[in-house]
């Protein structure tokens, strides 16, 4: 029965239920002129040492049309990832290939940005503006990215200003339904030696939409009053080519979010508010010599979180220092080797800890890419992590791509990868709950895929199919022990298996150009073993993992007009691990019409958007009402 201590404890649970791990890092890199050699030969940076894995990018048209949305909205609309959003204003946590929010790594320019306290990223606080590229890497990628990359990884990279285009600027203003206002401005300069980019945004959303309150007699239509959000942030990137072979870059990223946390229907609103503020700074040095390419990254991240309600006031403030050094050596067209070291140090102040706590972690990795034949590519990676208190296992991965027809028509891909996740600082230091006996989570991922590219009747077609099997053992979860104390334990073993299908087509018909993408995923995520408690739910689908999700997008361009449509079908999701109660499937349609107007050298873009065109009533988290149909109009002016 809920009593006062339980309630205090709730904060801990709220926080811990997003519990996970932060961490390590990486091998992914900015694509800069100086690494072109490796890239030209071995492909995109994310794929050089992850042969056989499935990597997709959010396309730039979508990102620029929906630049005011959060990363959660963008990935929900365009990828098979499922986001559990606590209403229009609440946190958004991801389920990727059936894993939980802390089992997906989020990397910024190759370094993990999840705060080490919670070990997971709230995607509703991350914007999509200010990046060069947003990519999604499917499946275990821990040998490349370190702890937490069990279900997959989200790769954010700073824009790359190496095109020597001189000075450019861009401003966007947007207004929409439910009290939505957004502004974004950016300037960039790209010279021979120096490049500079600055992008800033601000967003206010009242979210005062109407919804049917299912908790009240007669289910009256009421107005949402507690879901307002204010966000702002900026990115700044400076690049300096000291010599043709040496490049220094500085990246800064600030995000601020202040919001009311939308209550569930039927729950009292106790003035729940949350303020998140993150400062991220990174310096990178790249140097090429006869020994190959040297890459050094030094980063400082600070994440501040302040939660308040009528009865609680809780703060968390964590500093992370990271250093990553890598050396890449490429020999001809056949092989490339990268060795590296990643060091992390965390200092955390949290109301749930006894004073300030700190922790250091390290990992070393060796990544090997070998192309023995023109149509056969292999990669073999190893990573060993070291952490105070824990003994993470040596993690290997192996991948291959084979093109049996000796051309690009068909590729067979596959990989076998290990993964791991270290317990979070909350798992370790939460007073009265932190569990020193915890073991790191361990994952195994096997996948096999086919990629087919062809041109049929002037239509470019790409088809891809991947099947995977993943096991995550020692899955850490907070649950009450026999005395009712909530604490993290290595609760269960989970088996995820699924199929991912995607197709894209491109065609030009005179002045009309058409492009369409479709994706479908089947995800089964079952508890296989339970190490503590009753184990009633063995063999059942984990909560909030949809068995089916499909996305479809189409874009048509004709002269100065373009129309972009996005369809998202999300199947039934259980709301507990017992498969008894569920949320209904939903279908969301978003449309955006853009008119391009040339004003001398400059460009004006007028966009009218409508989200949730069919006015679907849906929830992604139990009893949190989501917005109905809304409209947004935006003006974007690009110089030149």
């Amino acid at each position, binding site marked *: *029965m*809920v*009593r*006062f*201590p339980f*309630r*205090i404890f*709730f904060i801990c649970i*709220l926080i811990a239920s997003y519990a996970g791990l932060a961490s390590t890092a990486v091998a992914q890199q900015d694509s800069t002129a100086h690494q072109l050699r490796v890239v030209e030969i071995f492909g995109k940076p994310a794929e050089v040492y992850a042969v056989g894995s499935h990597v997709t990018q959010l396309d730039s048209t979508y990102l620029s049309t929906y630049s005011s949305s959060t990363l959660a909205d963008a990935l929900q609309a365009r990828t098979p990832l499922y986001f559990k959003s606590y209403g229009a204003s609440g946190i958004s946590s991801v389920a990727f290939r059936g894993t939980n929010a802390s089992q997906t790594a989020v990397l910024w320019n190759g370094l993990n940005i999840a705060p080490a306290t919670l070990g997971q990223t709230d995607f509703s606080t991350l914007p999509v503006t200010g990046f060069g590229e947003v990519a999604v890497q499917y499946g275990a990628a821990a040998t490349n990215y370190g702890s937490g990359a069990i279900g997959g990884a989200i790769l954010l990279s700073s824009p790359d200003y190496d095109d020597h285009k001189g000075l450019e600027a861009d401003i966007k203003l947007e207004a929409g339904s439910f009290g939505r206002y957004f502004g974004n401005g950016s300037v960039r300069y790209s010279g021979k030696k120096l490049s500079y980019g600055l992008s800033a945004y601000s967003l206010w959303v009242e979210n005062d939409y109407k919804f049917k309150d*299912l*908790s*009240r*007699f*007669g*289910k*009256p239509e009421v107005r949402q009053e507690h879901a307002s959000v204010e966000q702002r942030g900026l990115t700044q990137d400076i690049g300096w080519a000291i010599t043709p072979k040496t490049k220094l870059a500085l990246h800064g990223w600030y995000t601020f979010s202040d919001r009311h946390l939308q*209550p*569930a*229907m*039927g*729950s*009292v609103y106790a003035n729940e508010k949350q303020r998140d503020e993150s400062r991220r700074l990174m310096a990178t040095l790249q140097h090429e010599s006869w020994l190959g390419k040297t890459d050094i990254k030094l980063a400082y991240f600070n994440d501040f979180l302040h939660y308040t309600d*009528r*009865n609680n006031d809780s703060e968390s403030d964590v500093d992370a220092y990271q250093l990553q050094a890598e050396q890449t050596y490429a020999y001809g067209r056949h092989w490339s080797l990268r060795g590296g070291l990643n060091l992390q140090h965390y200092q955390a102040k949290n*109301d*749930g*800890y*006894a004073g300030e706590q700190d922790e250091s972690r390290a990992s070393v990795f060796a990544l090997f890419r070998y192309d023995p034949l023109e149509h056969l590519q292999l990669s073999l990676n190893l990573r060993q992590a070291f952490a105070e208190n824990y003994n993470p296992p040596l993690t290997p991965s192996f991948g291959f791509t084979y093109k049996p027809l000796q051309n690009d028509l068909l590729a067979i891909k596959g990989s076998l990868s290990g993964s791991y996740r270290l317990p979070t600082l909350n798992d370790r230091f939460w*007073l*009265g709950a932190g569990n020193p006996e915890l073991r790191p989570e361990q994952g195994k991922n096997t996948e096999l895929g086919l990629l087919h590219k062809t041109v049929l009747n002037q239509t470019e077609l790409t088809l891809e199919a991947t099947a995977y099997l993943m096991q995550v053992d020692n899955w850490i*979860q907070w*649950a*009450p022990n*026999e*005395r*009712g104390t909530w604490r993290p334990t290595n*609760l269960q073993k989970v088996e995820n298996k699924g199929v991912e299908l995607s197709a894209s087509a491109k065609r030009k018909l005179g002045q009309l150009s058409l492009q369409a993408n479709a994706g479908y995923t089947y995800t089964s995520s079952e508890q296989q073993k339970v190490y503590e*408690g*009753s184990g*009633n*739910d063995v063999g*059942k689908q984990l*909560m909030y993992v949809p068995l089916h999700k499909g996305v479809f997008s189409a874009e048509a361009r004709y002269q100065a007009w373009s129309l972009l449509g996005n369809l998202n079908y999300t199947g039934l999701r259980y*709301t*507990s*691990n*017992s498969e*008894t*109660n569920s949320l209904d499937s939903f279908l969301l349609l978003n449309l955006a019409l853009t008119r391009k107007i040339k004003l001398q050298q400059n460009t004006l873009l007028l966009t009218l958007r409508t989200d949730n065109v069919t006015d679907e009533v849906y929830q992604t988290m*139990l*009893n949190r009402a989501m917005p109905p149909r809304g409209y947004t109009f935006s003006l974007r002016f690009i110089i030149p």
Partner: protein
Amino acid sequence: MKNLNNFRSLFLAASLAFSAFTFTSCNDDNDGPSGAYAEDGVFVVNEGNFQQSNGSISFYNNNTNQIQQGIFSKENEGRILGDVVQDLTISSDRAFIVVNNSNKVEVVNANTFQSLGTVEGVALPRYFTVLNNDKGYVTEWVSFSSPGRVAVVDLNDYTVTKTIEIGAQPEDLLLVGGKLYVTNNGDNTVSVINTATDAVEATITVPDAPTDLVLDRNNNVWVLSAGKVVYTPDWSAIDYDQTTAGALSLINPSTNTVQASYTFDSNQSQPGNLAINGSGDKLYFTYNGKTFVQDISASSLTNAVFLDRSFYGLDVDPETGYIYGGDAGGFSGNGTVYVYRPDGTQVKTFTAGIAPNGFVFN
């Protein structure tokens, strides 16, 4: 809407009063009330997850051995019951469901579970008790920093007619001969309210943090105090130097004095879930990961272990003497109910909703 609601409630209350009358008059013919939930069975109160509004009521039918989950939603066109379902009280043909973090008490027909009305505007309500067909009482925490109160509810139109300020975080209430005993969990007192005047007429000091109250066969009131949990000044840990141990105390209602008080041996665990059997001579409670049984005639804590496990909720069927324990598991899925004979052997087990915290026997 509110007026309509009240009108509807009045209308339903009127028809209910009529049907209650019919029921009473038919009782002699052994012709019980009809409805899916009128049969021999047990209602399970499933608290749900805090802030998710997924609390529910289950009904286990003893004749068919079938469990029905989420019966409020089922009988009321999919309406959500609410957030933290704390208590269910049945009085003649009405059931009162206290929904703590929804600030309301839902009133339904106990036999059909169809909605009759809602008591709104109660602040963090906890437990409900019915005096007669016209009047009920509900404890309200109000907030964590203010004194709590008892709201007097008019059972004809489901409105609060009066509030009585008492101690901090009032929990359980028990009617004994026209007097209402209320535990003030945030303090070390039991308030006694005269139901004729609805005023506090006595405040009895008991060991810290009283939670549960039961009446024994000798008409004495047993109070279980959990003990006060004191945190360090920065709220980061429990300060065991100042935390007090729980206690089981006996109040004589004719004098309103504490006649006996037995303190638990440790302050590291808080006792809870006090229940009494139908014959009023055996007390059950949970403490330190175990379930204990205590004879009311014992003159100390006998430490008789009934079961080597604890429960999230515990009650005793007054007719059969069977002990029902609710196991919430990890709160991430359905809870499980275990049923034991008074000798401790398990009779059966069934699945309930999320976090089963209490039982009401039909």
